């Protein structure tokens, strides 16, 4: 609500520009703002997770259970639960009301990332080091369902395609790429999209696989694949609003893919029947995979490629803002200390966020407060970039207005009229006729973001904290 009273030009700024704060607690490795932007979770090298209160910039909770580096953190939409994964092979679900672990799972090897289902807090997908990614449903504590997700690119089944595919003459080409593969495909990242109905997976061979999460015959099966590069696909970011997918590949290029309009109708509206079009695209895909990147039949068109042509920098981590209009990336290497920001319609470099004199590792965007957070690789500090809105001095005096240039004052007709008190009172009363609504709250803020109720982490105040801090108080 404060945004309405601030300088509209400052509020309209879409990204932060100045490094304003650094938070220190342990050695931060992964960071994530909650949806409302009032808490920041930071995963540490030693496996602890600390939660900062964005109002006071203080640690309000430290969650200890992991024994390895925290690899990923995910807030539930309501802000009450936190999913964490670590190299100690564990994935934990925390309830921040009690600050305890309510679900725990141990895999056989280290976990890369874990991602929560957008609407169901008790479903997540995670990618595991040297193993297939898994889909876990642990809504029932005693009956945890763990299902492996295939990583091989989509191959239309013979029976399925022969039934309905009319141009079956191309089928002979299909088994070929399958045979060529000697090593197994490994997934580095899996992301839920479209309300959790689909999963996007990036593999070490540069495939982008789409996995269905519809409760039908194709559940947890790859329903479409597209080769987008010949290196690892490290990270996927999806902007549903603008129908864009950003894939951070280890060949130092971030690829921006656009999702065709008919993709949604094809895979979301009628998901139970993979159509023949799909088979067709797969056919041409298989035949032309090695040659071209932009195949006409591909569902995703590579729109833009982001890379640093001069320094050939590798990108550590990427993220986008709430409407997908800006993409930011942190850079790999001890000589690189900056965050690059591009706007995503033309792909031009908008801003380079500078500040800390060290390599930045993980980044996250706090949309609600227009703030970008990043952690330093060497120091483990969390750096925050925000916009400093200058004080409007006219706000301090009710009858002052700030103007850019001198304005010649023109007196109003009735400005110095002397009116009898009754008339003034009557005028005032007439003005007070309007209906006043004191209950309805605005649904969106001045930046157009939803105003949502979010979980408030309960404070536990102990007297001993007071005593230990007491000496600082004069």
């Amino acid at each position: 609500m404060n945004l309405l009273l601030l300088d509209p030009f400052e509020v309209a700024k879409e990204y932060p520009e100045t490094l304003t704060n650094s938070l220190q607690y342990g050695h931060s490795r992964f960071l994530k703002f909650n949806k409302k932007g009032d808490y920041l979770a930071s995963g540490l090298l030693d496996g602890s997770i600390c939660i900062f209160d964005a109002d006071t910039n203080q640690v309000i909770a430290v969650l200890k259970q992991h024994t390895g580096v925290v690899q990923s953190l995910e807030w539930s939409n309501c802000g009450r639960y936190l999913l964490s994964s670590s190299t100690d092979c564990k994935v934990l679900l925390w309830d921040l009301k009690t600050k305890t672990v309510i679900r725990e799972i141990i895999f056989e090897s280290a976990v890369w990332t874990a991602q929560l289902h957008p609407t169901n807090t008790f479903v997540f997908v995670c990618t595991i080091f040297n193993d297939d990614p898994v889909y876990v449903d642990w809504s029932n504590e005693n009956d945890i369902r763990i299902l492996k997700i295939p990583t091989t690119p989509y191959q239309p089944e013979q029976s399925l395609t022969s039934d309905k595919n009319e141009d079956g003459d191309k089928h002979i080409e299909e088994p070929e790429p399958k045979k060529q593969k000697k090593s197994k495909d490994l997934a580095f990242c899996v992301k839920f999209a479209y309300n959790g109905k689909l999963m996007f997976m990036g593999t070490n061979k540069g495939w982008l696989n789409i996995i269905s999460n519809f409760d039908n015959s194709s559940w947890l099966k790859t329903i479409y694949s597209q080769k987008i590069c010949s290196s690892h696909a490290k990270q996927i970011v999806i902007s549903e609003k603008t129908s864009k997918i950003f894939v951070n590949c280890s060949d130092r290029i971030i690829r921006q893919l656009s999702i065709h309009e008919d993709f949604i109708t094809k895979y979301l509206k009628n998901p139970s029947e993979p159509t023949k079009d799909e088979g067709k695209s797969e056919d041409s895909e298989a035949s032309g995979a090695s040659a071209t990147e932009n195949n006409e039949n591909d569902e995703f068109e590579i729109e833009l490629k982001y890379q640093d042509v001069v320094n050939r920098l590798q990108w550590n981590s990427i993220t986008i803002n709430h409407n997908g209009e800006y993409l930011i990336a942190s850079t790999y290497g001890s000589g690189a200390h900056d965050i690059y920001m591009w706007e995503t319609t033309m792909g031009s470099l908008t801003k380079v966020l500078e500040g800390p004199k060290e390599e930045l590792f993980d980044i996250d965007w706090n949309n609600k407060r227009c703030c970008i957070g990043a952690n330093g690789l060497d120091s483990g500090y969390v750096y925050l970039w925000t916009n400093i809105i200058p004080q409007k001095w006219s706000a301090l005096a009710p009858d002052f207005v700030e103007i850019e240039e001198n304005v010649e004052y023109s007196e109003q007709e009735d400005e110095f009229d002397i009116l009898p008190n009754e008339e003034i009172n009557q005028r005032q009363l007439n003005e007070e006729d309007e209906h006043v609504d004191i209950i309805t709250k605005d649904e969106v803020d001045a930046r157009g973001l939803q105003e949502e109720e979010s979980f408030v982490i309960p404070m536990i105040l102990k007297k001993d904290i007071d005593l230990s801090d007491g000496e600082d108080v004069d």
Partner: protein
Amino acid sequence: MTADYSFSNLYNSRYSLPPRSNGSKSTCIKISPDGQYFAVSTSDSTIAIHTLASGKLKIKFHGHTKGVSDICWSPDSHYLASASDDRTIKLWGLAEAQCIRTFVGHSYSVSCVQFNYKGNLLISGSADEAIRIWDVQRGKCLKTLSTHSDPISSVDVSWDGTILASGSYDGLIRLFDVLSGQCLKTLMYEMTDSSFPISYIKFSPNGKYLLSSSLDGVIRLWNYNNNKVVKTYRNHRYKPSPSATGGGQVYGDEELSVAEKYTCSTEFITVNNKPSMIASGTEHGNILMWDLDTKKIATILSTGEDSPVLQIDTAQSGKVLASVTLSGLVQVWDLQE
């Protein structure tokens, strides 16, 4: 204006607690957000917690060295903050039954305290003309806002915790950004040549309006976005009517102030299916309620004492009302269904 309505008995008194025998003055009453308890603060530096349902005394907090002016429950009802003339704010734990934090920093009597909705920040206003924002967890002052030129009488925070409003005896209402501490806006009533001290302010439930009580005895509802007073609520003199039966009163032309000397607090009453009302204590032992839109007095609750009703507080949007007079009379009222 003529008398065109009757005083309906909107509220029934559930019980009342008589003034204490030692003659100490009461200053504030607040119902806990969970509706379990209410707390009463006094000028002899004690705070008493009672069960709301029965009025039974649960616990008494002693610790301040001077009178307590204002109290505020934390949103989770576990803690109670108190502002005292001994220049400190203390935070009391209900479960711990003791003081767990003391906020030191103000250089003169602290007049008002308010939590934000998350309970992680505490806002205080003081007679030293400063407003302070405190980090509750650490008990430290985060910001000091010194833009008023007279004692602060009242502070409030909007429901989303982003705007802080303050009223001061310098006649100004200022709005601040909680996060940056910047002054966002200043409101001053322009119709008069001299401005009257602001005694109490309160945000509307949706935070779009601000209700201010000033010592000219008038309550005003501001739309702070366009600096306009949208409603003015006044008290009118009542004459006992000889003709009416049942001790009815007639609404006269003469105006009487709501409060010119004391800070009598206001509340919004927004019970479902009923028109919204503004409630305020008066200097003469009554609680007045106006219809929000028509500005007409909807009901008058009489405490039976000729002592200012310093504080009223509501639970469940106004279904339950608690009041305290300076003399120490506590009353709990129920809305008639």
